[in-house]
């Protein structure tokens, strides 16, 4: 099936998560081959996810782990 850009956008997230049917995947990929705009949207979204998965992006507060384990130790000592 010939997809337009809006169809592709609607499925970008499922496409990235590999939860589209093989037929739809093939249709999307055919569209991406000739559509630079959709390719760029897909790439940018994927890059945001790469950056999101980077532990340096979302960090724990400094000392969090130490304070947590100190509290746990007190909890254990109490019973």
């Amino acid at each position, binding site marked *: 099936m010939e997809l337009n850009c*809006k169809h592709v*956008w*609607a499925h*970008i*997230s*499922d496409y*990235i*998560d590999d*939860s589209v049917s093989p037929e739809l995947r093939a249709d999307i990929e055919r569209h991406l081959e000739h559509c*630079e*705009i959709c*390719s*760029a*949207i897909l*790439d*940018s*979204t*994927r*890059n*945001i*996810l*790469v*950056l*999101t*998965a*980077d*532990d*340096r*992006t*979302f960090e*724990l*507060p400094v000392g*969090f*782990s130490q*304070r*947590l*384990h100190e*509290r*746990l*130790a007190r*909890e*254990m000592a109490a019973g």
Partner: protein
Amino acid sequence: MATEQRDEKALIARVLSGEKELFHELIRPYERMVYMTVFSIVKNETDAEDGAQDAIVNAYRHLSKFRGEAKFSTWLTTIAVNEGRQKLRRHKRAKEDSLDEPIAGEEEQFTPAPLTDWKEIPLEALERKALREALRNAVAELPDIYRQIFTLRDIEELNVAETAAALGINENMVKVRLHRARMMLQKSLVPFLKTTAPARKGFWGRMPWN
């Protein structure tokens, strides 16, 4: 991994049979996950740290209730979500009922921001501290329901079923909201990238998904 899974079960059994100090070891890989979950709900570091500590202490106290039908991480996330919601309720009693209301525009179709020069963005740009900060800000500005889904799925990397279970919504809702969350982030980060990234070719061919 199967081996890790077995070790974790054994670890839990040992904690329950009296080696309680092993709980330190059990919880270590999940500290970040619990914190991020609570943070996605309460939206400030102090409450997130308090809530995360409370959630983990609760998990310790009630470890015997964990039966192993669910994954330990899912059980823990559910506790963290509940802790976050309780904290929020205590802080904002007045606004409490707005939490579950559908927000305006949820049914509208979200469209991404078209861009043509994205492929010119070099790897160094993605490494930059400023870009990570822009992403943190963009996530913080997402409406609550989208931020929570995005946190569980894309920061903590829970699967759709685990996310649905932890938040008490159906799997289709998880997918729909995740899609919208990602499109909103794409939209809010594109201008930032376009204005701050110097052009250089040849980056995209080297990315792992190619």
